[in-house]
C-alpha cells in the first residue's frame, strides 16, 4: 500500500521508536519522558495543537492575548509546551498534528506496529507510522444521558462548551444553564461566566453535601482532578445559583433552545412531583461524566477493566509493546494523566532499550498516581449519575442522535421483542449504528435495556473512507 512521507519515524536508525497517540497531558508526559530517555518518539494527535482537553489551546492565529485566563496550571502547561518544542528541535520527537488514528495494527512477523491515521482538511488522506512500541493516551469523551429536547440546537455537552471556548474563543448565546453531574461542571460554569455568559444556574444532581465535601477537597488539593478551587469561589462571587439535587428534566424550544425545565430530586434520585420550574436560557451545557476512549486498545486486543483499558503498575497493557496512560485507563483528571503518562514513557523507553526499568526512577509520579486515584474514586461515588433518569425519557425522546431512534423503539425491542442486551437492541432498532458508532447513545441504550454498558467492539476508532480501507486491507489482520 502507499505510505505517507511520515513512514518510519525510526528513520532507519538504530534508535527504537515509540508512537504516542494523543497529545493531552498523558501523551505529552509520556512523549517527553521517553524522548529524554533515548527513544525516538512520534506524537500523533487529531488536534491542530498539543494540549488535549485540559490544555486545549486557541488556534495560534487567533492571537489570544491571555489564553491562561481560561486555564489553571498554566505553568505546568508551559513546561510541557517548552519541553515538547525542545525535543522537536533536537529531532527526538516528531509531532503529527491533525492526524486521526483509526487503527493500530500489530505486525506479527517483524514485531512492531503500524499506526494508521487520516489527515488533511477532510481527514481522508491516509498516513502510516511504523513504531516498535505504542502508548495509547487517547483520553475520554463526555457521557450525556438523554432527556426530552436534548437534541435541540443550543444543548451541548459541558466539555464541548469548554472546548469551543478554549479552542475557538467562542460562546454560543448569552444565557447558559450548566447541568448534569460531576466535577467538570464547575470549571465549565466558571469558564462560561468568565467569558461573559450569564450562567443562570448550575444544576447538579448530586446532593449538596457531596458537592460541599467536594468543594472542600478542592480547597485542600486545588490541583486535583479539575481546575478546581478558585472556581467555586468565582461562581459564588458571580452569584451563580447552585441547585444541588436538581436535574434538568426537559429542554424546550422551537427549533432552538429557549428554556429548560428543572426539577428537585428526592434522595433516591426521583423527580419530586410539582417541583418543576422553568429557567430561560439559550445554552444548556450538560454532562454526566466521562467515558474512556478504548477503541484502539480493543482492536489491538488489550484487556479492558469495566469501561477502561487495563494497565499494570508500569502502565503496560496485556498486549506486548502497548502501554496506556491517562483517561483511556480510567477517568481521574489531568494530574493523574500526567503521572501515568510519565510512568508509561519511562517504562517504554527502558524496555525499548532492552533494560528492565527501575520503578524508583518514577517514584514521585507513582505517589501522585496513587493519591490522585484514591481521590477520584471518592469523587466517582459522590457524582454518580442519578438513578431513575430513564423515568423522564418520554417515548418520543430521541435516544440515538445519529439514527433518530426514539425511546419507544428501544422500549418496544425490550418489552415486546424480548431483547435483553444492548447488542440485540442495536440490531433491532439501529440505535448505535450511525456515525458516532454508539459512543453517544451507548450508556442510554444500555440503561433503557436494563443491562450494563459493554465495550462496543468497534472495528475502527474513526470512520474510514472506503478507498483508504481497501488499500490498507492488504496488511490489516483478519478479524
Amino acid at each position, binding site marked *: 500500500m502507499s505510505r505517507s512521507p511520515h513512514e518510519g519515524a525510526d528513520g532507519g536508525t538504530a534508535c527504537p521508536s515509540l508512537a504516542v497517540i494523543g497529545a493531552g497531558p498523558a501523551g505529552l508526559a509520556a512523549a517527553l519522558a521517553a524522548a529524554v530517555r533515548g527513544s525516538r518518539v512520534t506524537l500523533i494527535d487529531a488536534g491542530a495543537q498539543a494540549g488535549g482537553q485540559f490544555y486545549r489551546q486557541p*488556534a495560534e492565529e*487567533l492571537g489570544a492575548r491571555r489564553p491562561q485566563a481560561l486555564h489553571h496550571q498554566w505553568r505546568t502547561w508551559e513546561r510541557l509546551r517548552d519541553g515538547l518544542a525542545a525535543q522537536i528541535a533536537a529531532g527526538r520527537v516528531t509531532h503529527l498534528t491533525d492526524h486521526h488514528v483509526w487503527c493500530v495494527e500489530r505486525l506479527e512477523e517483524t514485531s512492531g506496529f503500524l499506526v494508521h491515521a487520516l489527515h488533511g482538511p477532510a481527514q481522508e488522506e491516509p498516513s502510516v507510522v511504523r513504531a516498535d512500541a505504542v502508548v495509547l493516551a487517547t483520553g475520554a469523551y463526555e457521557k450525556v444521558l438523554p432527556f426530552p429536547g436534548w437534541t435541540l440546537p443550543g444543548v451541548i*455537552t459541558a466539555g464541548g462548551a469548554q472546548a469551543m471556548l478554549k479552542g475557538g474563543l467562542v460562546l454560543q448565546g448569552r444565557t447558559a444553564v450548566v447541568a448534569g453531574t460531576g466535577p467538570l461542571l464547575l470549571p465549565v460554569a466558571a469558564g462560561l461566566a468568565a467569558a461573559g455568559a450569564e450562567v443562570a444556574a448550575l444544576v447538579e444532581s448530586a446532593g449538596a453535601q457531596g458537592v460541599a465535601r467536594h468543594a472542600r477537597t478542592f480547597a485542600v488539593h486545588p490541583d486535583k482532578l479539575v481546575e478546581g478551587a478558585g472556581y467555586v469561589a468565582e461562581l459564588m462571587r458571580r452569584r451563580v445559583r447552585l441547585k444541588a439535587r436538581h436535574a434538568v428534566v426537559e429542554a424546550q424550544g422551537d427549533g432552538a433552545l429557549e428554556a429548560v425545565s428543572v426539577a428537585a430530586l428526592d434522595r433516591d434520585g426521583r423527580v419530586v412531583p410539582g417541583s418543576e420550574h422553568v429557567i430561560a436560557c439559550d445554552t444548556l451545557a450538560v454532562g454526566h461524566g466521562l467515558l474512556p476512549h478504548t477503541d484502539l486498545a480493543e482492536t489491538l486486543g488489550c484487556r479492558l477493566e469495566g469501561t477502561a483499558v487495563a494497565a499494570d503498575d508500569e502502565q503496560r497493557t496485556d498486549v506486548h509493546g502497548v502501554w496506556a496512560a491517562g483517561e483511556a485507563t480510567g477517568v481521574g483528571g489531568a494530574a493523574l494523566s500526567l503521572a501515568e503518562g510519565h510512568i508509561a514513557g519511562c517504562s517504554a523507553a527502558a524496555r525499548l532499550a532492552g533494560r528492565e526499568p527501575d520503578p524508583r526512577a518514577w517514584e514521585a509520579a507513582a505517589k501522585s498516581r496513587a493519591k490522585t486515584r484514591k481521590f477520584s474514586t471518592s469523587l466517582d461515588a459522590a457524582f454518580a449519575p442519578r438513578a431513575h433518569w430513564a423515568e423522564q425519557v418520554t417515548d418520543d425522546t430521541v435516544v440515538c442522535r445519529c439514527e433518530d431512534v426514539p425511546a419507544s423503539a428501544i422500549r418496544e425491542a425490550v418489552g415486546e421483542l424480548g431483547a435483553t442486551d444492548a447488542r440485540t437492541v442495536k440490531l433491532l432498532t439501529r440505535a448505535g*449504528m450511525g*456515525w458516532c458508532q454508539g459512543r453517544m447513545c451507548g450508556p442510554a441504550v444500555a440503561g433503557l435495556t436494563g443491562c450494563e454498558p459493554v465495550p462496543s467492539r468497534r472495528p475502527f476508532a474513526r470512520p474510514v473512507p472506503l478507498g483508504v480501507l481497501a488499500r490498507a486491507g492488504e496488511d490489516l489482520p483478519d478479524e
Partner: protein
Amino acid sequence: MRAEPGPAYTVTFDGAQVAVLPGQTVAAALWSAGVTAWRTTRGTGEPRGVFCGIGVCFDCLVTVNGRPNQRACLVRAEPGDDIRTQHGTGHEHVVGGEER
C-alpha cells in the same frame, strides 16, 4: 480573555457572508455569527449543530465546498469557503462501525 487576531476574512454560509477570525473552526465561525444549526437529520429533518465539540458525536456535520459530512467542530474555516447546511447524513461514502 481578549484576542488580538489577525485580520478577519469571510466565508459564506448558505450564500450569506460570514466573518471568520483566522484559525477558527467552521463551528466557531458559525457560532460567532449567531448560527447554531447547520444540519437537518435524515429521518425527521430536525436541526442540529455542535454537541460534543471534540469530533466524537458527528452531530455537527456540514457541507464545505461541496464535500458533505465534514465535522464543523474540527475543520478549520478557510478564506472563501462555501459552507452549506447539510440535509440528511450522506452515509454512503464512508464505513464506520457495523455499517450496512
